[in-house]
């Protein structure tokens, strides 16, 4: 049974079809969240919240985008909500665990430096960079997901890339 059949059945109220669909996309969503949050524990929490939202909104999926894109959009909004909540509570800080993960890995030094710089950027700035340059989403899609104007997305990405380039050049010098 393919995705389209599972989605149709899930929208008709078939709980097993919906559970199968979520099982199939659980790890892709988690992987996506790891790449935008840089934090595996947070990604796990947000994946579960994304699944709950997907269950609540399955009836609203219109099939205009791929199902994975629809889930990634929900996951992105969950992450942005989390960021807003953290800012309200003034608790946002880079988690030490993920820094260690990169420290231990056998990545080339310049890749490790790039990742460190990316993680050091404010999250709302790093997010569009990853969505554009890693996932290849359009400015319009990113703007819609982040609920900000397209111009803001473009300027955030432009400034972030410039900052990252400058940082790498300084490290080389």
């Amino acid at each position, binding site marked *: 049974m393919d995705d389209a059949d599972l989605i149709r059945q899930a929208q008709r109220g078939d*709980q*097993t079809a919906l559970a199968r669909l979520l099982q199939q996309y659980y*790890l892709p969503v988690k992987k996506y969240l790891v790449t935008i949050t840089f934090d595996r524990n947070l990604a796990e929490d947000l994946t579960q919240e994304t699944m709950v939202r997907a269950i609540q909104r399955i009836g609203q999926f219109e099939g205009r985008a791929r199902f994975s894109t629809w889930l990634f959009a929900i996951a992105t909004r969950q992450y942005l909500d989390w960021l807003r909540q953290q800012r309200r509570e003034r608790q946002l800080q880079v988690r030490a665990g993920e820094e260690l993960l990169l420290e231990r890995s056998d990545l*080339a030094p*310049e890749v490790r430096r790039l990742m460190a710089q990316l993680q050091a950027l404010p999250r709302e700035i790093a997010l569009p*960079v990853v969505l554009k340059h890693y996932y290849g989403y359009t400015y319009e899609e990113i703007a819609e997901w982040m609920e900000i104007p397209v111009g803001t997305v473009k300027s955030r990405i432009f400034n972030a890339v410039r900052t990252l380039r400058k940082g790498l050049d300084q490290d080389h010098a």
Partner: protein
Amino acid sequence: MLHEGLDRLSAPVDEESPPDLGALLMLVHNVQQAQRQELLRDLMRFLAVAALILSGGLWAMLQFPLYYLVTQGVLAVGLTIGAAVWQTEGRWISRE
């Protein structure tokens, strides 16, 4: 470089297994049940408020029929004038 770094960061997820179907089925069941209960609560709240407003209107009509009819008339005329003004303004703006 970005691809290499993010691939490496997310690589451990590839070695994980998704939750089992039973657990997800339970989650789907619980979330949908909670959603149905929430909808039912909303419907009950709506019906209660509607019943309150209707019974208030009914009580006013029986107690003070004249005032009630005058108020109804004023409301109807006021709304009609308001709608007409709103429509006309819309047309003027669209002509400009």
